[in-house]
């Protein structure tokens, strides 16, 4: 099992959700996040005072998939979330030891 953590533009969430749905990757957790990588923030002016906003609103999407699904899911996310500009986000993959369904304590891939 692999965990996919994808940080994407807030405006791309719908497209990414649809793309994942189409390849049959189901179940995800979405968090509203703030952060920045190489993309610098923007400046705001309030009554002549300048404020630099360097933590930009982002969407962090988490899902755990069976290993054979992972590459297709990554491809789907990249294709849906890409604009080619700085700030498109990143995808992180990591191994997951165990998954447990709370309802019936199923374990492993069948719990996903």
């Amino acid at each position: 099992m692999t965990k996919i953590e994808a940080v994407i533009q807030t405006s791309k969430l719908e497209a990414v959700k649809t793309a994942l749905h189409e390849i049959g990757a189901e179940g995800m957790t979405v968090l509203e996040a703030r952060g920045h990588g190489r993309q610098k923030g923007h400046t705001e002016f309030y009554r002549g005072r300048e404020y630099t906003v360097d933590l930009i609103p982002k969407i962090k999407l988490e899902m755990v998939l069976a290993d054979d699904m992972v590459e297709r899911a990554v491809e789907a996310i990249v294709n849906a979330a890409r604009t080619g500009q700085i700030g498109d986000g990143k995808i992180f993959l990591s191994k997951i030891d165990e998954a447990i369904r709370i309802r019936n304590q199923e374990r492993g891939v069948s719990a996903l």
Partner: protein
Amino acid sequence: MFADTRGLKALLTWLFLWTAVYSAFSQTSSRLTPATVESQTERIARLEQAVTEAKSSADNSWMLVSSALVLLMTGPGLALFYGGLVRKKNVLATMMQSFALMAIVTILWALIGYSLSFGSGNSFIGAFDHIFLRGVGVQPDAAYSATIPQQTFMVYQLMFAIITPALITGAFAERMKFSAMVLFMIFWSIVVYDPMAHMVWGKEGLLNAALGGRFPTLDFAGGTVVHVTSGVSALVCALYLGKRVGYPREPMPPHSVVLSFIGACLLWVGWFGFNAGSALAASPLATSAFVATHFGAAAAALGWGSAEWIRNGKPSTLGTISGAVAGLVAITPAAGFVSPMSALAIGLIVGVVCYLMVAQVKSRFGYDDSLDAFGVHGVGGTIGAILTGVFASRAINPIFKDARGNAMGLGILDGNAGQLLNQFVGVVIGWILAAVGTLIILKVVDLAIGLRVTEGHEIQGLDLSQHGEEGYNFEVSA
């Protein structure tokens, strides 16, 4: 056929009515005896009475509406305007300050404030003749307005006494103890507001232009009484209390320009009661003040917004609404004395100057006037009072008359250069009274109970530390 029947019916009805009216008249006249015949004098007296009552009703209805409009400026207008500008941990505390003043000043006004402001007294302050509102009934006080009940006048003026201290709260937002705020404002109303209101508008007041004061200052709706006093006091508060923890290192952007936006719009609407109501009658003068108010606000919104556009590349919403408020402040003393075109000029000037004041000058001096109460009300009020001495015109309001009753010039452009001196006297007295009074009160309250919240409480936010609640409980589970 059907139509014909209807026509016939209508004709018959008319005939019947006319006959009835005619017979009623002839019966009345035939039954009159000489004793009940109304003499011409009596009739005229009765009609004069009816005319007076009609005028009084008209004026009174407008003044009651105006009173409500001015209250609307404080809550929700100013409360929203200021509430949106603070960080979200202080939104309730900021709104609460305005609301608490609606209650506190009202009670003070009934007990003593109205008497000190509008009772007869000396040049500086009213006497105790109206203490506990004694003698303030439905009879008009002709010195102020012959057509509205004195109670209407009293409650209208009360609304001004409420918003003036509420304006100051913008300067010490996010760091003053609620208890200290309450104590400070009680003293401030009595020591600063009441004497200033008496000097400018009260009987025998030193600066009263309508009732023959020594230095007749033209202040139609409170440029000196409301905005100079509150703005200057705000500056003194900001300097005395010091900066907020983390200012200016930490960013403290407004938590909701949306709230401020709604507040500013309500202020604009309420201001019609403030300025046009200051005619104290539903008169053409009220119309003139209404129009000047609106034009001043519009021009200043454009002035501030454009200045920002030129300097920052973008016209901000907050800047444009702040400009409108600055314009409303500046037109306050002038409304009722100036033409619509002069109002545009005043608005444009004050919009640009207040922007420069808030965006450039404040950061140079480094004082923390959190919500720019001084930059908008102190500066805007001062400019407005001075410009009133430039643009005021007898064609709008012939308030100065010579011995033969002919209207004399008002402002510089109306051929009365000397008026500028009177305007300066009014402004300087406002500045001194506000600065000295505020400093003394701050010192007293500071010694008595302390002014600022603890640093821990300030970081936690005033909503929790002063009131035990939060403005936004979005994350409580359902």
